[in-house]
């Protein structure tokens, strides 16, 4: 039972109640709206007939339990309903924006890893020295500077002053640089500290002494042996931080007018298009859940020392 299938099975069993909680929460959100969501959307100028017609069309005049069951049936079919604004399928709108967000998130993770691994390794190799202090400073800035402050500063520097990169836009590789840097900075900071600590920890182990005693040079010991073990916690943190990244994507997309699901969410909130907001939230939360479960699974498979609880 403790093979890979066993681990996978136990993870999936844990996920089921969470999926139930997420869907239920997103369903209930609509009923949190003070007063009536339809009235909030149509505004005070709407006639009672218009309100009644729309409530009926969206099934909001039915008992809560009936609405809840209908919502589940709908979700099970992959149908997220239709929007308030133009009555088009929510799923269609989200699908058209989802790839842009995924692209941004993956680029941000890449940027973070490309900054953090060399920086963290250098800091660990020169522990207590000037390079270590510099790496700490960079990490500190990444943590303290929120992406909504960093983004405009990067635009100011690279677009306005240097004219090197576009301040917004979508489609070309250069459009991705500033948004990915903005979104990935905080993760890069966290990872730098983690890589540093992890490499320092690994360097203490006996196998490092053995490798050195064999006559291997520092570089080989570091990259062949130490990093291989030292990067396992990094994978976990990247996975766990993916949710933070998705939250940050909403802000980053707004700064750079990135046409992703984050901008879509904010537009939907502003228009009080509640079914669209619900759809966006559900998709983001489920993405997060899938990534988290996959990370946890991978982690346990990669490192058999970890006990399955």
């Amino acid at each position, binding site marked *: 039972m403790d093979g890979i299938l066993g681990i996978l099975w136990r993870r999936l069993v*844990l996920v089921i*109640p*969470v999926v139930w*909680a*997420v869907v239920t*929460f*997103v369903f209930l*959100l*609509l009923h*949190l*709206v*003070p007063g009536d*969501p339809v009235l909030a959307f149509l505004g005070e100028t709407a006639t009672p007939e218009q309100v009644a017609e729309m409530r009926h069309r969206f099934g909001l005049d039915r008992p809560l339990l009936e609405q809840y069951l209908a919502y589940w049936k709908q979700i099970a079919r992959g149908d997220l309903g239709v929007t308030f604004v133009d009555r088009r399928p929510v799923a269609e709108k989200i699908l058209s924006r989802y790839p842009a967000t995924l692209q941004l998130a993956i680029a941000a993770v890449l940027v973070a890893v490309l900054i953090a691994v060399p920086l963290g390794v250098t800091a660990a190799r020169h522990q207590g020295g000037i390079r270590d202090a510099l790496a700490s400073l960079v990490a*500190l*800035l990444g*943590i*303290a*500077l*929120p992406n*909504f*402050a960093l983004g*405009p*500063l990067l*635009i*100011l520097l690279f677009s*306005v002053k240097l004219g090197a990169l576009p301040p917004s836009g979508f489609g070309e590789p250069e459009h991705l640089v500033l948004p990915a840097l903005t979104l990935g900075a905080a993760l890069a900071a966290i990872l730098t500290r983690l890589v540093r*600590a992890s490499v320092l920890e690994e360097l203490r182990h006996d196998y490092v002494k053995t490798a050195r005693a064999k006559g291997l040079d520092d570089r080989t010991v570091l990259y062949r042996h130490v990093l291989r073990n030292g990067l396992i916690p990094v994978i976990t943190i990247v996975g766990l931080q993916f*949710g*933070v990244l*998705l*939250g*940050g994507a*909403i*802000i980053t997309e*707004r*700064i750079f007018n990135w046409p992703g699901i984050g901008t879509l*969410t*904010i537009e939907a*909130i*502003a228009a009080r298009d*509640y079914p669209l*907001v619900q759809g966006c*939230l559900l998709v*983001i*939360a489920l993405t*997060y*859940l899938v990534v*988290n479960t996959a990370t946890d699974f991978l982690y346990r498979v990669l490192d058999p020392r970890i006990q399955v609880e």
Partner: protein
Amino acid sequence: MSWTGKIGWGLVVVLLLVALWAPYMAPHDIRQQDLTARLQPPSRAHPMGRDEFGRDVFSRVLYGARVSLRVGITVVAICASVGTLIGALAGYYGGWTDRIVSGFLFNAFLAFPGILLALAMIAFLGPGVNNLILALSIIGWVSYARLIRGQVLKVKELEFVQAARAMGASDARILWRHILPNVVQPLIVQATLGVAGAVLAEASLSFLGLGVQEPMPSWGKMLDSGRAYLTTAPHLVLFPGLAIATTVLAFNFAGDGLNEWLHPQRSRST
């Protein structure tokens, strides 16, 4: 305490004083508009310049500390209280209480990226400071509950707790008089770091237009409206950005410093 810890606490005190005395320290009325002097760069009379309505940025940054810290400290106070209560009960009683709390509630709350959950609630409840505090408290209590549950699990097996139980002390008395005083240190550290997180979350949501509303100044909102004038008046983004970064760093330094001071052994080894 380390020097960064001391700097952190020093800044925290300064920020608290600014938040308390902003009305006396602000040189100008934060609502006073002067459209003839909009976007003016920093000068002697207006050390951080003027915004798109000609309002004094320095005064607004000072008032921004008031909003940020009010939200940050209130949220942490609510989260720490609720989290401690739930975490202590789950850790102390174990069994079904614990299975529901740590097996289900923790997972369900952590299934949503925190800021997204807050955003979701505000999107439906409507923007405003009170809804912001409510939303951030609902997402924030879990980490305190997890911390306290873990601590209580450790402490409840210690001899002095067993002794108290043998002497016939009630559960409430054991929890309150014997266990809680022993788990309060990590709680204070987490709460200090938590203020930084809450300040950042408030600024993020205000930046998205979902937090603090006009005419109350908030650093996140100032940054958002300043973005449109990035080329002509970068000071509108720079100063609120600096204020947020300083506050977040101050509470992070203070929390880390406290942690090292309380556990010199543990922090030296990491």
